[in-house]
């Protein structure tokens, strides 16, 4: 008789239709009981060939498509694309537009982080926390709708500036919404973060060391939760971030709880940024108008932006025509999810679901 009783491994397809894969992510797991032995990522179920589509659209026509990459933070996607185009064509952006971009971008970040918090706690079955976060997000979406006209796939930031000015009495609306947001976040924090069961489910689970995170090219909150302070808004300031006083929260644990908690901290920083940007909002034009058939000179440009999930990069190659010769998106979630097979072995299914939720993936951006 052998020293230990033998167990039998079996495989389980977690996804693509599964409640907690946040879209159509598919993990092929080998399990021993409920413990994961190995994991294989299967992605691409949402692949829409966006990079190919870009080659048959003009630069302006493709802009709305970019908000469908990371559909939870559409405004930031369009901003990244706009910055790449501005680099490509050497277009100047009016100052007021930069401030408006910061306002809309940070509101979008808050909304996206709230979705992350909500979906993370619902994956741990804290249903009430989920409702709290989504109710808070509703207020932010109302603000975004008031400015941009849409709630999800925001197409507000275009190459050269923004398309609309702020509506009237926007500042007082923001003030009210933020008050509400703060009290809701405090409720949420008390309800979820301090909960013993929640901490037991998340602390020390799915730890990503900073070295591993860098090796896999992780960026964004997930990297900052592992103790690496890398945030383009601070480290390579674009737009007007160098004029705004904010902090980049850094946590050291690298576990699921830290990845969750850093989102909460970042929301507070984004609130600060929006408030300062509203205070410092200069007057002036909104947009450097580009011609309809805009033809940048042949060449290439790489525009990066600190998106909600990490550093997003748009690599655009122009051949002098009105359509891009090649458009490539460097998607942060694509790198973030690549780490899953590395950290999955040893986790149970429950922990896997929690860890996956904390990585905050958006399949629209991964599959492109």
């Amino acid at each position, binding site marked *: 008789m052998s020293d230990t009783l033998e167990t039998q491994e079996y495989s389980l397809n977690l996804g693509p239709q599964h409640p907690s894969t946040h879209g159509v992510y598919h993990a092929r797991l080998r399990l021993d009981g409920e413990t994961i032995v190995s994991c294989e990522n299967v*992605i*691409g179920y949402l692949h829409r060939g966006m*990079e190919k589509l870009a080659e048959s659209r003009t630069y302006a026509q493709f802009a709305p498509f970019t908000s469908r990459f990371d559909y939870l933070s559409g405004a930031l996607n369009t901003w990244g694309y706009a910055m790449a185009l501005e680099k490509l064509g050497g277009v100047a952006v009016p100052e007021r537009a930069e401030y408006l971009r910061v306002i809309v971008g940070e509101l979008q970040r808050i909304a996206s982080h709230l979705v992350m918090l909500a979906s993370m706690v619902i994956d741990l079955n804290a249903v009430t926390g989920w409702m709290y976060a989504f109710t808070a997000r509703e207020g932010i979406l109302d603000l975004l709708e008031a400015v941009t006209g849409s709630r999800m796939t925001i197409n507000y930031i275009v190459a050269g500036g923004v398309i609309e000015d702020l509506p009237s009495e926007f500042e007082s609306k923001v003030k009210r919404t933020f008050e509400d947001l703060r009290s809701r976040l405090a409720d949420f924090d008390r309800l979820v973060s301090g909960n013993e069961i929640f901490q037991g489910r998340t602390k020390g689970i799915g730890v990503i060391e900073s070295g591993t995170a860098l090796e896999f*090219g992780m960026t964004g909150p997930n990297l900052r939760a592992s103790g690496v302070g890398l945030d*383009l808004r*601070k480290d390579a300031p674009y737009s007007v971030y160098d004029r705004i006083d904010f902090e980049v929260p850094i946590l050291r644990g690298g576990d699921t709880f830290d990845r969750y908690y850093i989102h909460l901290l970042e929301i507070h920083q984004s609130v600060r940024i929006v408030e300062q940007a509203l205070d410092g909002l200069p007057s002036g034009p909104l947009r450097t108008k580009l011609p309809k058939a805009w033809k940048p000179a042949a060449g290439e440009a790489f525009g990066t932006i600190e998106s909600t999930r990490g*550093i997003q*990069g748009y690599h655009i190659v122009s051949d002098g025509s009105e359509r891009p010769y090649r458009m*490539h998106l460097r998607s942060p979630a694509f790198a973030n999810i690549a780490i899953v097979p590395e950290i999955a072995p040893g986790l149970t299914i429950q922990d896997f679901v929690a860890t996956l939720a904390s990585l905050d993936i958006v399949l629209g951006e991964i599959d492109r």
Partner: protein
Amino acid sequence: MREGAREIAVSAAELVATMAALKALGDFILFDIVAVDRPERYELTYRLLDRGGEGRVGFFTVRVSAEKSGADEPSLPSLVGVWKAADVLEREVWDLMGIRFEGRAGLKRILCMDDFEGHPLRKDFVVRRTPRFAEAQEGGRP
């Protein structure tokens, strides 16, 4: 090097050694690989994120070309041994642009389906309405 050019071009043979040397400097992480289908060659841009400059972050670009010879599949040495991030990035380039990376395992499609035919980002890829799968439509797909 940091103060000098932010961009270097290397040959395919030197790629791995260059990258390993850059990694040994300690502050670079592999950020992205972009492949562009130029008329006469495939141009690959390896973008590294440089965290070295006193709290400032920059990007460092390494360019390498894969020649379009008569064979369908141009190839380059793989960087999986240097950065683990290269795994999915190289699979993406292989999937969409059809550049084979040598010296690594598990180079298979990542975004398109496993039985997809062709490499969609190549300029000679013809976009059709019907999907291209190895098996005919009426044949029961698994």
